[in-house]
């Protein structure tokens, strides 16, 4: 069995499982009204109808697709383009780079305030340069430089400088002209 075919069948089986779990556990346990509701002798559609129909469609279509896949012997999908361990590994590395840069983006500003201006909180300083840009600048730069290095397979000073310029450009586009816009993570504080 080809890589695409096995990935496709595993996904389809997972989708059937997701549909069944949604139908049998999630919807009954997490929606207070049924598919059809009666209130003061009025009958109306309840909140459960649409999710039930959607989950039912997933189960039916995924089952039909699985059946068709079992009956058909081959697919036209290019094997390298499909989901395999290498792809999932790559996605994991990308997630780690993005995750680390988001942590920096979120916490660096508050951390800097607590170290250099312990009298104030980040909330009061979130509109003050350099604190308001610090997290976005460093986190954004790490994200861009990290991803470029991963893609190109090497770390270069030129790319780090390009990353810095790109983040400064975004600050210039979103923050400098607009008082009402908040760069990440300033809206959360």
């Amino acid at each position, binding site marked *: 069995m080809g890589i695409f075919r096995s990935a496709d069948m595993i996904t389809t089986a997972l989708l059937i499982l997701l549909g069944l779990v949604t139908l049998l556990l999630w919807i009954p346990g997490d929606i207070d009204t049924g598919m059809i509701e009666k209130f003061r002798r009025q009958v109306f559609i309840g909140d459960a109808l649409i999710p039930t129909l959607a989950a039912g469609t997933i189960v039916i*279509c995924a089952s039909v697709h699985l059946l068709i896949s079992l009956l058909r012997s081959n697919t036209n999908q290019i094997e390298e383009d499909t989901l395999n361990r290498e792809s999932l590994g790559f996605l994991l590395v990308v997630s780690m780079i993005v995750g680390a840069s988001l942590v920096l983006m979120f916490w660096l500003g508050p951390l800097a305030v607590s170290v250099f201006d312990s009298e104030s909180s980040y909330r009061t300083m979130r509109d003050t340069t350099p604190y308001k840009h610090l997290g976005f600048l460093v986190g954004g730069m790490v994200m861009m430089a990290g991803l470029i290095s991963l893609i190109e397979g090497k770390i270069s000073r030129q790319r780090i400088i390009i990353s810095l310029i790109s983040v400064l450009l975004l600050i210039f586009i979103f923050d400098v002209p607009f008082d009402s816009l908040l760069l990440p993570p300033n809206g959360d504080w």
Partner: protein
Amino acid sequence: MGVFDYVWAGVLAVFLGPEAFNIFGIGIPITVLMVIAGFLIGIVTGATPGLSGPFLMAVSLPILISVFGFTPDALLPVFGFLVGIMKGATVGGAVPAILFNTPGTPDALMTTLDGYPMTKRGEAGKALRVAHFASASGDTFSDLVLFTCAPFLAIAVESYLGFTEKAALIILSLSFVAAVVGASPMKGLIAAAFGILLASIGTGEDNYSRLSLGTDFLANGIPMITAVLGVLILGEVFVSFEEMWREHRDEEAPPEIPQSGDNSLSFAERRKLMPFISVSACLGTMIGALPGIGSTLAATLGYATGQKMHKGKIPFGEGAPEGIAATEAANSSVSGANLIPVLSLGIPGNVGAVFLILAADSIGGFNPGPSVFRFTTDVVNPELVIAFGLFTAMAFANLLNWTIGARFMQMVGVMTKVPKSVLMPFVLLLTLTAVYVQETNFNAVYFLLLFGVIGFLMRKLAIPTLPFVIAFILARNLETTLRQAFAVSDADPLFLFKSITSVAFLSMSVFVVIFFSRSKK
């Protein structure tokens, strides 16, 4: 107000609307300025491999809303900018296809077949002129069809279709998109159902936010912009990351070829191209009017039809100007017609239309759909004025295309030199920032990245993303219409099968799924 009063009011809303600034006492209307800006930026975006018109529409939306606010006055400048991008990107996509054998947008792939051989012969200038002439002609034709058809279709829908039929029509549209996009209709239907399921999280009429697992994170539902941008933009970005990572090298821009051949395009040559342009424009317009079928198919069909019609010396694929004309007229004529289902039915048929709906949804005061075209005589229907204002902006963008488009598109070839390995991470950060700026909450970033991963997985497993996005957008509308239809039927459980039109729509839904399942064996 009569029909022509509405049309005129729409024209005036664009040209005599709020001023951006004065030059020698003459006010420059903001909508006009935004159309120009959108058009020029759109050409640059289209000419940059890896970027696309819909992407730029998506990331510019939060900035536009910040500049113009949430008032009805914001609608026309924002729509003008987005329409300008749509048109500019279509034209711009041909530039790298012709100059460097690299399509700027997927629908310009067929343009490379004849465009690049012409460049190698030293006739890049002529090829660009052919592409521009065909693109502008196709686009203009498509817009004219939109201007004339959308109001009539909307009036017919509003007059003859009740809640039941409208619900059945939404089901038909979703089935159609699910069936025609991608390799397997079943996967399309799974994607659409998944979109509806996720869209129903945190919504509903009960006090408890359904399917929220009792968490605050899901209680307010999933922001539409995160689902749409995540699946459409970030999913694509992650896939391109992986492709580049596999190659482990930067894509070097191909060398420029000196141009010394015939680079003019005479009137007689233009006339010879007209049959190819006309046929492709009709094909592209018909395809564009159907939800879900994109400009890539239009370009392929236009090229294939042109190839059958062609009897010239240079065969298609070896640098025939007719090949470029057939492709560019077909893919450009999709953009205008794509707005027919949006404006007349409220159903977005493609990615560009999705972002127009997102803009309308974010700003408020304009709900694309049949109710827009209510020609009320006693009270002014402001939505109708906006609709005609949108048509005026499109016509103005066409005018720009005819006048400055060709000159500008010859200047943007340099964009191909931007390394994709730098551009794509920038796109990720830009999308993330744009979403945060609009939602001002880190949860939106988490949703965005989650949907990016979903988009990545869908692409890797050949599950089409467009049915997911369109279903996510239409889910609320579908549920409301079903509730209304059920209520007016006095709670008849068979309410969807009580009208012939509704039964016809539902039968067609089943038919398209079966038909496309069979034909794709």
